[in-house]
């Protein structure tokens, strides 16, 4: 913080009139909205101005702040220095190095900057291949997309996300960790380092040991770095945000301290806009502005699988789909759940960047998998199964084992061929409800 102290030459205030758990108020003049200040060296941001009364949100919390603390306004909102030097580095929520390396030199940009003009965007159209059939076949990811994993805290979402990040051919991978455990932080660091990808990684970290309110800065920091590489260097950038539920929890802490009327699940009424501002930074630029892209893969942890909670609910309305992981009880493997998972952009690549039978084969397989689920219910309720039911169940086992499981690594053509072979193995032509034109070509001699 020494560097910022040196540049601050404004008036020093020493009379704090009010201190809550997260905010301090004082009388000050000439203060701008969103401006940063230092309170006895602790970073704070202006959240309310009423005449001369200024309320500041203190990121580290207000414990230990005396009423005569020195308050210096810095005349700028939170910012990050950007340059190629960011690559391969680890930072805290303020954008300061935590890896022992030197400070970054570069252009200083305000974080949380303006939105891209929608008419300057390009419709996303490039498949991001992950090798995982539950994703590539059923829920293809597209560059410029934003999609979260909706996961229970005990599910291996960080592992899957690391796998996806490494297999996706991104120029930069930017990791924003919010309330991440120290163990998970080391998991990411080690995984990327072992894969030799460390020079492509930039991480902004707020671990469980750091103050909760600090993590409000993480997504904007990560995305400011992402915009630098996507806009100025025309790179393909993948941003990983984990865990956005911790981010939302911090929002609710601040709004609660500011006496705002909470809406659903004690979240602030602006939760939708707050989350949208982050996720909408995902973008595909047209060739005319360099063709860079920002793709966001996030994690929203659920409590008890409840997706009607305000955080996953609002997220679902903002993001372009969501992915669920589930342990398949028959095969014992972790699979990407084909029922609830959805990639809204898949039709932009399915059958266009992949083989033309993609969409129909995918839907047919999922429909039959749903029939298997019905058969399973019948079985559990003690009813006799028909021949069709039994075939569905066998199909479901193979489908989970050979395609949906996250340990599968295939290209999309192989995925389609495997699906056709399973359909052929267990079903009659008229049971699959696929367009004749496609069955003529791919069903083969049964």
């Amino acid at each position, binding site marked *: 913080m020494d560097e910022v102290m040196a540049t601050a030459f404004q008036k020093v205030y020493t009379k704090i009139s009010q201190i809550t758990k997260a905010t301090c108020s004082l009388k000050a003049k000439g203060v701008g909205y969103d401006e940063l200040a230092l309170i006895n060296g602790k970073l704070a941001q202006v959240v309310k101005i*009423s005449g001369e009364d200024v309320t500041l949100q203190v990121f580290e919390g207000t414990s230990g702040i005396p009423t005569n603390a020195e308050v210096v306004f810095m005349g700028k909102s939170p910012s990050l220095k950007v340059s190629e030097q960011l690559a391969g580095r680890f930072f805290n929520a303020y954008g300061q190095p935590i890896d022992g390396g030197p400070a970054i030199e570069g252009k200083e940009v305000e974080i949380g900057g303006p939105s891209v003009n929608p008419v300057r965007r390009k419709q996303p159209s490039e498949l991001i291949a992950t090798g995982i059939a539950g994703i590539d076949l059923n829920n293809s990811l597209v560059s410029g997309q934003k999609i979260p994993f909706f996961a229970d805290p005990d599910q291996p979402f960080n592992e899957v996300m690391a796998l996806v990040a490494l297999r996706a051919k991104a120029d930069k991978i930017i990791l924003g960790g919010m309330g991440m455990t120290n163990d998970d932080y080391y998991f990411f660091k080690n995984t990327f380092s072992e894969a030799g990808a460390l020079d492509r990684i930039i991480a902004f970290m707020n671990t469980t040991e750091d103050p909760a309110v600090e993590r409000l800065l993480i997504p904007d920091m990560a995305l400011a770095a992402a915009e630098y590489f996507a806009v100025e260097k025309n790179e393909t950038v993948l941003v990983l945000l984990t865990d956005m539920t911790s981010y939302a929890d911090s929002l609710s802490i601040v709004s609660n301290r500011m006496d705002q009327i*909470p809406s659903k699940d004690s979240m602030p009424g*602006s939760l939708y806009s707050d989350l949208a501002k982050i996720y909408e930074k995902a973008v595909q*630029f047209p060739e005319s502005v360099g063709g860079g892209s920002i793709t966001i893969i996030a994690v929203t942890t659920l409590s008890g699988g409840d*997706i009607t909670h305000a955080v996953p609910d609002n997220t679902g309305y903002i993001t372009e789909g969501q992915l669920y992981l589930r342990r398949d009880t028959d095969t014992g493997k972790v699979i990407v759940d084909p029922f609830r998972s959805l990639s809204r952009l898949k039709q932009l690549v399915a059958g266009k960047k992949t083989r033309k039978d993609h969409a129909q084969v995918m839907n047919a397989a999922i429909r039959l998998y749903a029939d298997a689920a019905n058969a399973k219910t019948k079985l559990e309720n003690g009813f006799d199964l028909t021949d*069709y039911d039994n075939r569905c169940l066998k199909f479901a086992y193979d489908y989970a084992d050979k395609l949906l499981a996250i340990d599968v690594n295939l290209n999309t053509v192989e995925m389609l061929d495997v699906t056709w072979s399973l359909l052929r193995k267990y079903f009659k032509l008229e049971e699959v409800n696929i*367009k004749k034109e496609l069955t003529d070509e791919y069903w083969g001699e049964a």
Partner: protein
Amino acid sequence: MTKGFVSGVVSNMVTLAVDGPVLQGEICYIQTGGDRLMAEVIKIIGKDVYVQVFESTRGLKVGSEAEFTGHMLEIQLGPGMLSKNYDGLQNDLDKMEGVFLKRGVYTEPLDCERLWDFTPTAKPGDVVQESDWLGNVEENHQPLKIMVPFQLKGKATVKSIVPAGQYKIHDVIAVLTDEKGNEVNVDMVQHWPVKFAMTNYAEKPRPFKLMETGVRTIDTFNPIVEGGTGFIPGPFGTGKTVLQHAISKQAEADIVIMAACGERANEVVEIFSEFPELIDPHTGRKLMERTIIVANTSNMPVAAREASVYTAMTMAEYYRSMGLRVLLMADSTSRWAQALREMSNRMEELPGPDAFPMDLGALISNFYGRAGYVKLRNGQVGSVTFLGTVSPAGGNLKEPVTENTKKVARCFYALEQDRADKKRYPAVNPIESYSKYLEYPEFADYMANRINDEWIPKVMKLKTRMQRGKEIYEQINILGDDGVPVDYHVTYWKSEVIDYVILQQDAFDAVDSVTPMNRQEEILNLVTEICDKDDYQFDNFLDVTDYFKKLINLCKQMNYSTFESDQYYEFKKQVQEML
């Protein structure tokens, strides 16, 4: 004009101390660091005026100057709006420079230099009043009217009008003499405050004309009419946007206005990139030619999001005054309601249900009330059909936005998670959803003329079958396949035929995505024939399942085949043989 100074800032709500009179809803501009930020008055207490700023307030300081404009939020209406991409405040997005939206940059919504072919239809000496037609201008093959200014009070006489020729929008094309003898210059541009409904029509009768959308679950099962209202609630991932896009592509309307209100930017980009390529199935011209997009995506400032639906509605009413059929779609009205909630919260108003403002219901019903089928004073008719989506929190339809909308919208298309999970698209629940227009005698008469008087009774019969099918499905689930008589299975599978052949439709298939009414009639007749046949002979339920699965597969192949092609007749023949 009144001036003011900033005295407080909380997010995008700013308090100003003013030196003169201020209108509720007045627009002002606040100066900050070289930017002019547009804002709207939302509350006045003594000298304190509360405004919502349509931009980020970052860096705004106490003491910054504000200048009032004397008018409310209004938009410009004239030739040159079709195929434009606007933001919620009617800024032309294409005219903005750079990749990012810069704060305080406002662009002209209309092109002042473009020449338009104007043909007068009024002549000197004609007595006119506000909104009367003075002449025609053609834009993208739409005959637009140049009208007497909407603000004109009482009657006026046409003093002079220019001859046919090429004129710019701000050229004086007519001079009127009003009741007081003052001369009024008329150009091609109208101004209208967006929050007021246009009532420049003679009457607003009950709507009755089917508005064809090409979507079978709507046209056949729960039709919407020209000038009607409807809403589409559904949890995320159930296909609200896909359904809305399908309707906007195929609907039989002269003008389509799409308000992307607080939704994903990529969905708007999809319209930008696809509509210029797609063909309007009714006229054969490019879809974009009849489309206006009002885009205020979720990351754009929240106050402008609230304005965007009003901006779009005002544009729709403008075209309706010209006797055109306008379809207005808003995705999503819940985001608009949330914008109201954010502001109400910042003003520290006492909250209503779910922290929404208390007057939410009144605002929603006033807004839906602006749609409608109208008879203009010159005997012509025009319509604004409004379809809004609702994004209920947690997919729970017992929330304030859905409940208040249900009170006013006449069509209800309930998208259902269960159907979406089973990939039964469009996921419109056939039993919960309704169209009140099916009960209108005016509509029944219209359909009897357009198709035949069997149509509505047949549709109602299929609806009953769907209901029965669902009951039996539940019984089978409880009692097991063997626990119910074989003819129960037949009844259940008949409802599945209705579901698979009529209701489910592949929005991404070139043929199946659009079904014209004559084809829908054939499908309805075929499905009715399958369902009415009561001499099916089956030994056991397995035979029933096999038979109907085969039948459904054939019918679906028919749906995928070009209408009346050889392939179509081939599949049809196979269906007939099975019967």
